[in-house]
């Protein structure tokens, strides 16, 4: 039987779809009977969704500093090689 501590260690791999069928089954069985781990995995998933937004937006002065630097660079540099996208 999986321990709660192991559930916490495997939650990353579970959410990334990296567990084998056997591991996933063992984890699911644990989660069915353990409400603490059920809550952990659910809230951990929500947390991962929140991380890309955690830094918030730049202030207007930060934006205008970047815009000024970009404009100045445009004026001073000619066409140089671009990173591919």
């Amino acid at each position, binding site marked *: 039987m999986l321990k709660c501590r192991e559930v916490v260690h495997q939650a*990353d791999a579970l959410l990334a779809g990296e567990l084998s069928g056997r591991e996933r089954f063992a984890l699911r069985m644990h989660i069915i009977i353990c409400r*603490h781990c059920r*809550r952990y995995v659910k*809230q951990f998933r929500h*947390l991962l969704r929140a991380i890309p937004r955690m830094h918030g937006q730049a202030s207007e002065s930060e934006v205008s500093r970047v815009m000024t630097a970009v404009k100045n660079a445009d004026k001073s540099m000619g066409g140089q090689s671009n990173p591919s996208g």
Partner: protein
Amino acid sequence: MRAEVVPDDIQALRRGDDSAFSALVRAHHRALLATATAIVGIDDAEEVVQNAWIKAHKALPGFEGRSALRTWLTRIVINEARMLLRKSRREVSLQLDEDQHPLADRFREGGHWSKPPVTWHDESPDGLLMQRELADCLSRLLLAMPAPQRAMLELRDAGGLEFDEICNELTITASNARVLLHRARTQLFKLVDHYQETGEC
């Protein structure tokens, strides 16, 4: 939902539209600064990101949308960060630290919870990490986090880069990368859990 500009804006960005570019900077600048800070340190991060924006601005007409804009911008930041490190003859060191697991004190010896997570009141992306009261706790936690952990969090979770790419760029093994990311995430989990329980850091 991530702080991404809407697809229509990509057309405007390719055309070189200033207000679309400002919106792009507004949405991603702070996150890119955090990424650069994790790699080159806080003193050089601003310069790295400034240079990255200049490169991004020039490259946008050729942006093909194969990856999310945030991920594309994060790659440019990594390139600039590596250039700066090369110039100053420093190296990226993403070695595994020997820190204790952030949630180690939450388990009994047998491996069961001694202090299980509380029920979080607000689970929305904006509700969890973007509350004003939490902002200070969050930035303190990120500053105190070992740089390798923070770099993994910024690159993988905030920047959206794949493990393989991070491992190649920063010369780190896949298993170390996973351990570092797990530690960083569980530190964040602990912070949010404590905040949801007590309303304090």
